[in-house]
């Protein structure tokens, strides 16, 4: 061992270089292996995701006579699109906040429950997930209709004389959207709340903190990444909602996705692309803001 050291010490510079080269080669092989592992996914995304999105973006700039800003001008000139856009954003925002308010206590209870009870609660949360969104929206139509189950109960209880208009109102849209999107909020919240070390809570308790203080000073800050992840997912999904507002909404419940469908009905692909880009860029912007504020990695890491 000693002679070896002496020998290598003598020719130290070239040896170190060689080692570095070898190390680099191993590193490269390692990277290549990872690259090959993710290659199928990358190729899949390129063909089936990046390419369609890119061609959609291109379409919003290309008219009959080549490059044009005509479609974007149309967007700027028509205030109704902006109103629908802001309606859509407000709807998504409200849905997100309602989901958060409903999901947080449930996720918290799930994270503190025994594993059997947590499993049962999990199953109940996930069960509707396996049913088509169309069927679920339709189920709400049956419940909320003028001769539906709720109105039936209320009139039998003598609370109302005339059936209430529940269906085809913004209320129906909120109910159904929150219902559909709730699991997307519960899951990341549960995941984060579950990973909070219980000894921290015990420590806080031991130091004399009240339940309220424990929640606001320990649990809430530690669950921030889960809140952010849930909100981000629910908000972005809610932005693109089409079926639920179209089936259950009232006269004014028009969302941007419905306007896109209208344009496609008229084979106006370019303008549909402009509206779709609007949604896409808005979603990206929200994503970017969340990334800056919380950090996407923290949000989805465990």
């Amino acid at each position, binding site marked *: 061992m000693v002679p070896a050291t002496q020998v290598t010490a003598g020719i130290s510079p070239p040896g170190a270089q060689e080692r570095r080269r070898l190390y680099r080669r191993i590193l490269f092989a390692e990277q290549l292996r990872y690259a090959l592992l993710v290659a199928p996914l990358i190729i899949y995304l390129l063909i089936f995701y990046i390419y369609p999105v890119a061609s959609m973006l291109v379409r919003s700039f290309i008219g009959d006579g080549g490059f044009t800003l005509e479609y974007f001008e149309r967007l700027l000139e028509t205030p109704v699109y902006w109103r629908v856009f802001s309606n859509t954003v407000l709807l998504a925002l409200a849905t997100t906040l309602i989901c958060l308010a409903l999901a947080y206590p449930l996720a918290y209870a799930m994270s503190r429950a025994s594993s059997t009870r947590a499993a049962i609660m999990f199953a109940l949360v996930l069960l509707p997930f396996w049913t088509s969104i169309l069927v679920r929206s339709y189920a709400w139509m049956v419940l909320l*209709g003028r001769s539906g189950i709720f109105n039936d109960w209320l009139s039998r209880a003598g609370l109302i004389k005339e059936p209430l208009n529940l269906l085809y109102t913004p209320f129906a849209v909120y109910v159904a959207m929150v219902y559909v999107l709730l699991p997307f909020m519960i899951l990341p919240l549960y995941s984060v709340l579950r990973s909070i070390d219980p000894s921290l809570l015990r420590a806080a308790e031991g130091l004399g903190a009240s339940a309220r203080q424990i929640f606001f000073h320990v649990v809430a800050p530690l669950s921030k990444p889960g809140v952010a992840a849930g909100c981000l997912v629910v908000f972005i999904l809610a932005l693109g909602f*089409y079926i639920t507002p179209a089936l259950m909404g009232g006269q004014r419940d028009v969302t941007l996705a419905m306007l896109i469908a209208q344009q496609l009905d008229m084979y106006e692909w370019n303008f549909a692309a402009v509206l779709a880009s609007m949604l896409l860029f808005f979603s990206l912007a929200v994503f970017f803001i969340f990334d800056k504020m919380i950090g996407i990695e923290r949000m989805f890491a465990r």
Partner: protein
Amino acid sequence: MMGKTSISRRGALALMGSAGMTLAMPAVLRGRAEAAETAQMPEMTEVPEALKGSGVVRVVGFGGTGQTAIREAYFKPFEKLTGIKVIDSEGSDPNKVKAMVETGNVEWDVFLTSMATISRLRDQGDYFEKVDLDLLDTANIPTQNYQEYGVDTHAFAHVIAYRSDVFPEGPKNFIEFWDTTKFPGPRTMPTGTGGFAIPPLVAAVIADGVPLDQVYPIDIPRAFKSLDRIRGSVSKFWEAEAMPIQMLVDKEVPLAIAGSGRVVQLQRDGVPVKISWHGGNLVNNSWAIPKGAANAENARKFIAFATLPISQARQSFLIPNGFVNRAAAQYIPANILAELPTSPGNIEQLVPFDYLWWKKNKPQTERRWNEWILQ
């Protein structure tokens, strides 16, 4: 990204439509059975020599019970009598045709669409092969129902439908449909932005006193003023054809503007609903051939075959859609004939869809509708 998901979501709405049709399927079969007591479905025994051929033709329809009907009405006798094999598929969509032609990968030889769509796509480019008017039964098909690039077939009407248990004598026309004192209760009618063929503006101007033959060109401001009057009583401007039908069944509304074919199926199912044809909007589906279709020649023969009197009668026999070939009426049993929009006595009360007017004015009316609906 959004464009793509949006299509599939619209697909889902369409799916709901066909789900509605599937629910109504027993009614179709029952209607057929009842009709069978009085008459048999007409059979064709021979075709003109010019329609015979070989090879295949790839036909795409809209799916659902409509597809079942055209399979029985056209595909089977066509294969037997002409020697051309039909490869049928579902989900005809002009957006797909557009993409197929643009990418040179045309998978269909003939597809169901509408004159409005043909006209609109032709403004955007060269998406169609010509049909063969020499093969066509032009003696019995009205001239407005065919042109170089398309031939009309099944006719649909959007008409007044009402629950007869709520109103034994319902509104006879749109003036009465708009009358909320005589006919109180929520209504449903099509949205002003859904597709091309179902504009509530026609109903609106008729409700305001415009005679049927003067509906076009539509006085747009007058139509919206008329809609202002009824708006408070409209619980839903529907997006998919199945919606008004479901709302009638659920008693969500006693009054609707809905597709006559689906309403007839409700009647056959025993739901107490009645139709008033007056002022209804008459629109046809059309056959067209995508540019570059490999079997365009067979497609031309198929279109000619499918619009022959007996073919058309078979289709109306199986599903309560109208026919385009006037000579079909003599092959259809009287009880079925009375339920069809194109029967003598009904068709005179309808307003044919003026697709050229709509092509020109749709962007404007759509924008106006969107502004109006958000008010």
